[in-house]
């Protein structure tokens, strides 16, 4: 059985084409997903991300528990509302999931994990509590709405009272605050400024309606995917999984390994680093007509396979096909992609492709 979010009717009313995503009925697009994508790059769009799993980590050992669980260092979170991106790893250094952790107070952290990995994440979080005075509780009573784009913050502020909007506009990047009945975080998954907002289900439809009246474009999973791909943000299950480490997934920056904090996966990452990394995650731009897709083979000039695409699509911002790919660490410059037996040239680029409405240096050559 698939689940519906409290905004289901709002999506249907807005003309959404619904799909099953990780057990949830969610909009894939409302009309043109390219228009939705462009609205987020140039103005403001909103996504129902209520399928994502919100988990409260509470108790005297909450910080100690997260220090063990996360590859990034929870000690970086010292200010109420501060957010941190991290992976949680298995003992082999493989990625169980990527998540955002919010610091609420010394005995209360909130994490947001992926919907598709819900069951294994909850089991893992629960399993690791052993030996810690900590409780893990999933919140099923929150709607989560991502409002993203250069005008997103102003448009959210416009539907709030003067006092609340002042608080909301004062939020710094990667910072959240509970403002009346809404938990508002200046985070996102599009490469644009904006908020991710958690609120009670009964307040959600009218809030959605107010944002809609402000001209915030409803956006589906289709636009969410092309936006995050252009922003060079990994998708769990495609660009990384339990067989890949953060070091091979472009996420070395999220691994706090310099001090001697003993987190799960640390020793495996140290071994991997000493042995030398074999693979890296890069961006690709197709230098021919066509569309890049996940799991296309990458070849060198001699026809030897040197990697594989992990995500790929058509980039509305660049009007070209782009991809993320895991390739041999030595490969630079150009290689070939096999699309239905034809070998086409691709150029290796540094991620991201697009951030804050601007195309990255060297992306368009």
């Amino acid at each position, binding site marked *: 059985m698939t689940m519906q979010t409290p905004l289901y009717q709002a999506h249907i009313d807005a003309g959404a084409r619904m799909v099953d995503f990780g057990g949830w009925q969610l909009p894939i697009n409302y009309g043109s997903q390219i228009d939705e994508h462009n609205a987020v790059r140039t103005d403001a769009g909103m996504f129902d991300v209520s399928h994502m799993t919100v988990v409260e980590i509470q108790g005297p050992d909450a910080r100690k528990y997260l220090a063990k669980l996360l590859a990034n260092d929870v000690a970086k979170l010292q200010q109420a509302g501060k957010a941190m991106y991290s992976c949680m790893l298995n003992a082999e250094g493989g990625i169980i999931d990527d998540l955002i952790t919010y610091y609420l107070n010394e005995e209360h952290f909130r994490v947001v994990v992926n919907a598709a990995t819900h069951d294994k994440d909850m089991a893992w979080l629960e399993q690791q509590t052993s030996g810690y005075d900590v409780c893990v509780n999933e919140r099923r009573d929150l709607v989560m709405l991502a409002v993203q784009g250069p005008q997103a913050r102003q448009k959210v502020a416009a539907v709030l009272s003067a006092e609340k909007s002042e608080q909301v506009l004062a939020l710094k990047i990667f910072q959240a605050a509970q403002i009346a009945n809404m938990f508002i975080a200046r985070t996102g998954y599009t490469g644009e400024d904006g908020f991710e907002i958690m609120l009670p289900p009964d307040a959600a439809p009218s809030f959605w309606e107010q944002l809609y009246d402000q001209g915030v474009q409803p956006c589906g999973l289709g636009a969410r995917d092309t936006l995050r791909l252009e922003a060079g943000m990994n998708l769990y299950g495609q660009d990384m999984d339990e067989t890949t480490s953060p070091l091979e997934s472009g996420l070395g920056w999220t691994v706090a390994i310099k001090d001697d904090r003993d987190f799960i996966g640390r020793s495996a990452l140290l071994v991997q680093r000493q042995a030398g990394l074999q693979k890296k995650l890069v961006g690709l731009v197709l230098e021919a007509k066509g569309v890049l897709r996940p799991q296309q083979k990458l070849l060198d000039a001699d026809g030897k396979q040197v990697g594989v695409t992990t995500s790929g*699509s058509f980039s509305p911002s660049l009007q070209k096909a782009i991809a993320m790919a895991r390739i041999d660490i030595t490969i630079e410059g150009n290689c070939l992609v096999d699309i239905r037996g034809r070998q086409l040239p691709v150029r290796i680029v540094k991620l991201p492709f697009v951030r804050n409405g601007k195309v990255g240096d060297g992306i368009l050559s």
Partner: protein
Amino acid sequence: MEDMPENMYYTESHEWVKLDDGIATIGITDHAQGQLGDVVYVELPELGDGFVAGDPCAVVESVKAASDIYCPIGGEVVEVNEQLATAPETINDDAYGEGWLFRLKPEDASEVDGLMSPENYIAVNSSD
């Protein structure tokens, strides 16, 4: 799906065929373009290519997915829609008209008798 042209024949894999003066024009249904979403690239056959019914003959790629197009009837390709190279979104805008894919000279035009009427196509796809 109510507005499907009556003078076309339809396949389960969402292609349409129209016969005019012994030449078959082939495209994808409006229902199919809706499912695919924004079309961004079309790989068309070459002039002179020969197909039998059911052969993969083209690929329509949207932002979301690549979709194989299967030749509804056998024949030889005599014309392709060049406009799609620069304006693939024409398929979204006008699936039964300007968004046609290619034309072929049928080996046996009576093969269309094995295809579906608009009513049958709607009946098969009404659950989507």
